[in-house]
């Protein structure tokens, strides 16, 4: 036990002496949380649009007005003709062009149905989806209004309509920051647990100090535990720092128990640290360790539900996320922080991650014993 304490002490000295380490620990959380939380949002405002109005009726003008009135859209200058519609999008003057065909009003009144065409620049797929969504909402509104007006002309008394009212639970204003901060904090913990730990172990190999350590009475498990404990502590510190920034700077609600978050984070860190240890047994230099860890982390993060919801992934991808510890951690962070889930609610996560922890630590120990 005393040996482990000496190693931990030595490790902390080295960490705080490393010039790149302090910024990573203290400045990166601020930068990441502030930049990502503000930058990574799905809201798109001020989309340039234009209209090719071939009908020029009162209804088509009304539709145009509806788009102009929306806070999301800004009409770009210039009249469109059939010939320069494509040009408008090619030159990036408009992301969205609405084509209102001839006889739009006539068809709507007489045949009770009419069509408009939406041309959307889909270079950025998700932006295009969001623009289409906004446009659709406006069209639906317009549709209902138009129908009500028409029905009223014949039968002013009966005005059937279904009003929809939304209430977004746990994040009433659909605040993107509220949604991102728990995830990004989880990311920081992952970064420390996975990347820095694997690099620190490989460093002993790369510099050759492991040779000197191995001829001392230090046991292998003492060395590993001694080297991993500091990162465990720093990662939990990061978690606390991230939560504080979220609470104080962004006023994120923390509904559930903080202790539950830390408890789950500790379990998660056991998994992350042992994956880091496995990586260190496959590599000889810090650079190799960094590349491999980075590769794994990108996959973990893309498949974690941090940026894109897991539910929107194809089934095979969703199955892969079952094996992604980051996905469980982010999910628990969001559940506990925003919804106030208790232990019973995240029991399943606990069980799965515990299994994961057992497997990854035993594999790490097996690999480490075999290689070193």
């Amino acid at each position, binding site marked *: 036990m*005393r*040996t482990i304490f*000496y190693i931990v002490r*030595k490790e902390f*000295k*080295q960490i705080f*002496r*490393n010039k790149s380490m302090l910024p990573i620990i203290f400045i990166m959380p601020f930068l990441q949380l502030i930049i990502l939380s503000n930058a990574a949002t799905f809201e798109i405002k001020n989309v340039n649009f234009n209209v090719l109005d071939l009908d020029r009726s009162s209804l088509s003008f009304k539709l145009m007005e509806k788009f102009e009135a929306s806070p999301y859209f800004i009409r770009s200058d210039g009249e469109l003709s059939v010939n320069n519609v494509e040009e408008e999008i090619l030159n990036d003057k408009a992301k969205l062009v609405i084509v209102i065909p001839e006889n739009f009003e006539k068809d709507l009144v007489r045949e009770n149905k009419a069509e408009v065409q939406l041309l959307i620049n889909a270079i950025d797929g998700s932006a295009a989806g969001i623009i289409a969504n906004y446009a659709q909402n406006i069209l639906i509104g317009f549709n209902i209004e138009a129908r009500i007006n028409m029905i009223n002309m014949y039968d002013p008394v009966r005005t059937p309509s279904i009003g929809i009212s939304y209430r977004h639970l746990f994040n009433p204003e659909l605040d993107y920051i509220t949604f991102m901060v728990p995830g990004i904090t989880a990311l920081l913990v992952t970064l420390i647990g996975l990347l820095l730990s694997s690099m620190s172990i490989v460093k002993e190999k790369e*510099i*050759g*100090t*492991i*040779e*000197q*350590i*191995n*001829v*001392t*009475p*230090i046991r292998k498990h003492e060395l590993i535990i001694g080297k991993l404990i500091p990162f465990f502590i720093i990662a939990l510190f990061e978690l606390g720092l991230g939560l504080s920034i979220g609470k104080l700077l962004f006023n994120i609600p923390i509904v559930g128990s903080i202790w539950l978050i830390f408890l789950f984070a500790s379990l998660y860190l056991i998994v992350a640290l042992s994956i880091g240890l496995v990586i260190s047994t496959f590599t000889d230099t810090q650079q190799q360790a960094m590349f491999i860890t980075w590769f794994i982390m990108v996959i973990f993060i893309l498949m974690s539900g941090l940026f894109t919801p897991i539910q929107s992934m194809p089934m095979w991808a969703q199955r892969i996320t079952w094996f992604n510890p980051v996905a469980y951690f982010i999910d628990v962070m969001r559940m506990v922080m925003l919804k106030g889930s208790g232990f019973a609610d995240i029991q399943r996560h606990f069980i799965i991650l515990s299994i994961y922890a057992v497997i990854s630590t035993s594999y790490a120990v097996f690999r480490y014993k075999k290689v070193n």
Partner: protein
Amino acid sequence: MNSIEVKNICKSYKDTKALEDISFEVKKGEIFGLIGPDGAGKTTLFRILTTLLLKDSGSAGVEGFDVEKDYKAIRRIIGYMPGRFSLYQDLSVEENLNFFATVFDTTVKANYELIKDIYVQLEPFKTRRAGKLSGGMKQKLALCCALIHQPEILFLDEPTTGVDPVSRKEFWEMLKKLKDKGITILVSTPYMDEAFLCDRIALIQSGRIMDINTLEGIILKFPKKLYAIKSDNMYKLNSDLKECGMCDTVYIFGEYLHLTPKSSECSGLEDYLSEKGHTGIEISQIKATVEDCFMDLMSRHGSTNNE
């Protein structure tokens, strides 16, 4: 009693044989030198004896402990200084020393007597990071760290490689003092001229020990007459001697060529060289050096250098 006993050790890395049937003993309290070029297998041997590497076959013991079964006991009583500087470069001199002391469950104070002579030279730099020390200072620090737990045997793997001549001399003086304190020292070096500082030496080449003896013993065994020869045009001299057919071996040794003649006499040689137009010829019979012995043994073992 022997400090180190090695019997018939073999070790291969995939297809390359690093050690072939190595056997030797190191007596308690002597300085034993392993002398051989890079790639001879010195480091492999060190790593087996310091319990860092498993041998393929044979047996090896350190102070009566088996290197595989009793590795824990061995690690408590040996000090190892690897060929590459392997202390923490980002810790200071003091911190490195303290760390290795605590790891052995002891303190610098308790062992100060042993390292005092070396440590006083380091003392002015004790707060400096190890990575920022000069080469000679690094070696001294590494030696201090290897000594901090009062080991019975020191394993020094090429401690003087890349160190300036003055520091090299100092280093060997320190080893002599340690020897006087009863510590057995196994040291390896690629420098033949350090052989005379060891009590006994083993010449090692391509994973095999060619000879083990005291320095005098090895030199006495040199079987042929040896001449040093010099002229004004050394380059031409070298090629002429190789062509003439009168010499067994011709090697360049600094400003002289060392040659062993085929016949016992080399009287015809001077005439031959004058004919070839050499001036300023000097020929004298000399005593063999370790290097001559090494070259001779190497050619007789017919070893091909498979680097």
